[in-house]
């Protein structure tokens, strides 16, 4: 009898590990398959230059999506990231054009993004607004503020391009690698540690898994919520700086619908929209899947109209597969 129970448990253990493996590695396997497919169809894809180009394209979405991962892990959503990106980009560009020191201009942009995220957090934690509604509202407010601030015109200026530091953010190379890729890597590393190795990360999962139980176990749920939206705003600001530097101008409609790509990356990476389950590694893979799709379809000369349809279909397939592996 004892023996029997043991073998049953051993079997269970095996089954469990396999499931875990697929659950963890599913997105990565999908990415590998996709890369092979695109390479076969268009061998130019695998060229180092194209791959670096792809990673640079991915970096903006990835940085936003890393922040979004925290938000979605708590069961929330942040629709305002695209608007925060535009407003912080515009403010940073204006400060630079006015001849303010680039260090101060960049820090001001980052501080503003954090502040806007903080406002989201306040509305959600203390105003008890549903995250979808709160950030839908701030999305249009921040976008409107951007138009007011810029008068609807792009901000460009000779002084902006004078700053080496600012130029470097989006267009620089370090050891032959575009600098935005370094930014993405650093942000990933910091947020990875924050999520998986600090008490803040544990509290994020706890909050998303069961807010009541987390509160009773001593988690300051409101504080954690506010911090998480602040991080999301901060990430949007960093993305805004990369984009503004890359384009050498701040467009008032920059970042429109970027929230959708970020959410897609998080979901493709296997994070549950219900909260409590997911990993930031998955988000990185999700962002790479989206980037590979975009890049691959461009190489294959597929019209951007069709590209949108394909992206949508990929998301649906990912969600269906996820459901299946969760059910069984």
């Amino acid at each position, binding site marked *: 009898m004892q023996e029997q129970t043991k073998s049953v448990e051993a079997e269970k253990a095996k089954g469990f590990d396999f499931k875990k493996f697929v659950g963890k590695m599913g997105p990565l396997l999908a990415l590998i398959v996709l890369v092979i497919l695109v390479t076969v169809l268009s061998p130019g894809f695998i060229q180092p230059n194209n791959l670096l180009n792809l990673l640079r394209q991915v970096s903006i979405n990835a940085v936003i999506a890393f922040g979004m991962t925290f938000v979605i892990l708590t069961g929330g959503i942040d629709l305002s990231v695209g608007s925060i990106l535009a407003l912080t980009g515009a403010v940073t560009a204006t400060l630079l054009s006015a001849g303010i020191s680039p260090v101060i201009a960049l820090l001001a942009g980052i501080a503003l993004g954090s502040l806007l995220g903080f406002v989201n957090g306040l509305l959600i934690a203390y105003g008890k607004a549903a995250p979808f509604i709160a950030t839908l509202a701030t999305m249009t407010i921040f976008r409107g503020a951007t138009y007011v601030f810029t008068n609807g015109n792009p901000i460009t200026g000779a002084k902006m391009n004078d700053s080496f530091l600012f130029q470097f953010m989006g267009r620089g190379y370090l050891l032959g690698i575009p600098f935005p890729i370094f930014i993405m890597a650093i942000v990933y590393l910091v947020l990875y540690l924050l999520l998986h190795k600090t008490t803040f990360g544990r509290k994020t999962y706890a909050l998303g*898994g069961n807010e009541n139980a987390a509160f009773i176990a001593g988690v300051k749920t409101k504080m954690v919520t506010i911090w998480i939206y602040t991080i999301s705003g901060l990430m949007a600001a960093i993305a805004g700086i990369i984009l503004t530097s890359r384009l050498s101008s701040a467009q008032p409609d920059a970042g429109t619908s970027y929230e959708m790509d970020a959410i897609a990356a998080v979901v493709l990476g296997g994070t549950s929209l219900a909260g409590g389950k997911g990993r930031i590694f998955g988000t990185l893979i999700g962002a790479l899947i989206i980037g590979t799709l975009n890049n691959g379809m461009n190489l294959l000369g597929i019209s951007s109209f069709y590209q949108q349809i394909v992206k949508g279909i990929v998301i649906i397939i990912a969600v269906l597969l996820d459901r299946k592996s969760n059910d069984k």
Partner: protein
Amino acid sequence: MKIEMKNISKAFGANKVLEGVDFAVESGEVHALMGENGAGKSTLMNILTGLYGDDGGEILVDGQPTSYSGPLDAEQHGISFIHQEMNNFLEMSVVDNMFLNKEIKNKFGMINEDKMRKQAREYLSKLGTNIDVDKPIGTLSVGRQQLIEIAKSIMTDAKIIIMDEPTAALTENEIEQLFGVVNELKKQGVGFIYISHRMEEIFKIADKVTVMRDGISVNEYMTKDVDMKQLVRDMVGREIGDFYPDRDPHFGKTILSVKNLTEKGVFEDVSFDVHEGEILAFSGLMGAGRTEIMRAIFGIDHYNSGEIYLDGKKVKIKDPESAIKHRIGFLTENRKDEGLILADSLRDNIALPSINGFVKHGLIDDKSVDDFANLLMKRLTVKAMNEQVTAGSLSGGNQQKVVLAKWVGSGSRILILDEPTRGVDVGAKREIYDLMNELTDRNVAIIMISSDLPEVLGMSDKIAVVYEGKISGIVDTKGATQESVMTLATGGADNARAN
């Protein structure tokens, strides 16, 4: 109608769940099905109603071999299963819930609400209740929802009704009402399969009782021919000795002192002391305010006035975090909603209240957390493959031990336990009692809220009885009886004085 299940076997993969179970029930009797969690009761019932196929054995209905294709088929043939977690649509009205998927339509295919309302009222009045059928079902108490479930069953002309832990969330009054209805329907020829952990109820309501253990049916008795000790022995497969362990308390100094705590309309003028090493039980009817008092002390809910003293010093506990810092732990009555994060691992659940203590250079020291969780799981005999499995995958008793592990691990000196053994099987119950004794031996003070009177009398040193938000008496457990506590709990003492 007579159902006979003979030699039923079932395995999920290599895991044998049922091995030759016999069970029979017929119209006009209440047959209780007892056993620890995981004994196979639910599986047996799911085979009867056709949710699962069986791997061996046969089901005879009135002597004919029968198998139902699923719960709906079983229901149409007069077997109705009332689950513990009722699947009601809380925002929808009583009548809409009752007629869901069975709506009465007029000749234009439109829903005939008047007719449905009339029928719903008829069935409910048969059960001796006049619930407003237009109210959203979520606004009614669980007891009332239970009655509505029974009304639904008789609406489908059920001959046999299966009830799974029907009283788990009912008040004493509601249980009385439920038993009245069961007895009435029994007279009309309805048979019941009654699954329950509560011994007292079995003896009150059941004609027969079958005990299951580890996938076999151990024994069947006429209830009148058997006693509680025998049933417990059958359930756990060994002698548990007395159901409640002996307590040998040594009280230290006063650790917690609550003075005149008041939240208007909820509780009023609540004062009590707890000593090191003491178990103070909070007894009373559900809704008397016991849980609310504890939530206020733990900093979850607000209170208008009153003071809390720890070790003689006045403290202000503004949220659970500060309660934990003062080394108070709170096992809440609803472990799924407030006690556990079901999707998280046992490790993360156990470590959550103490997590700030595991930080080295800003990062969590995972190895220490693993050891910490493992140690506590061993100490509390949590049965699980390892500390990485999710809390949701454990049985009720083991989940409760995980919640306890969390508060033992956080170093609680005062432990508030709200219904610590609800939905927990007999074996695990005893282990929880033993642990309570072990903790009080180490000078931990325990406040135990319980609606289970034998438990209150068996496991406490003092009993504070709450009636309508006020403490109606604090008595020594020695010398207290179920009757004396119940008198205080129902305001009987006040009435006696008034007379």
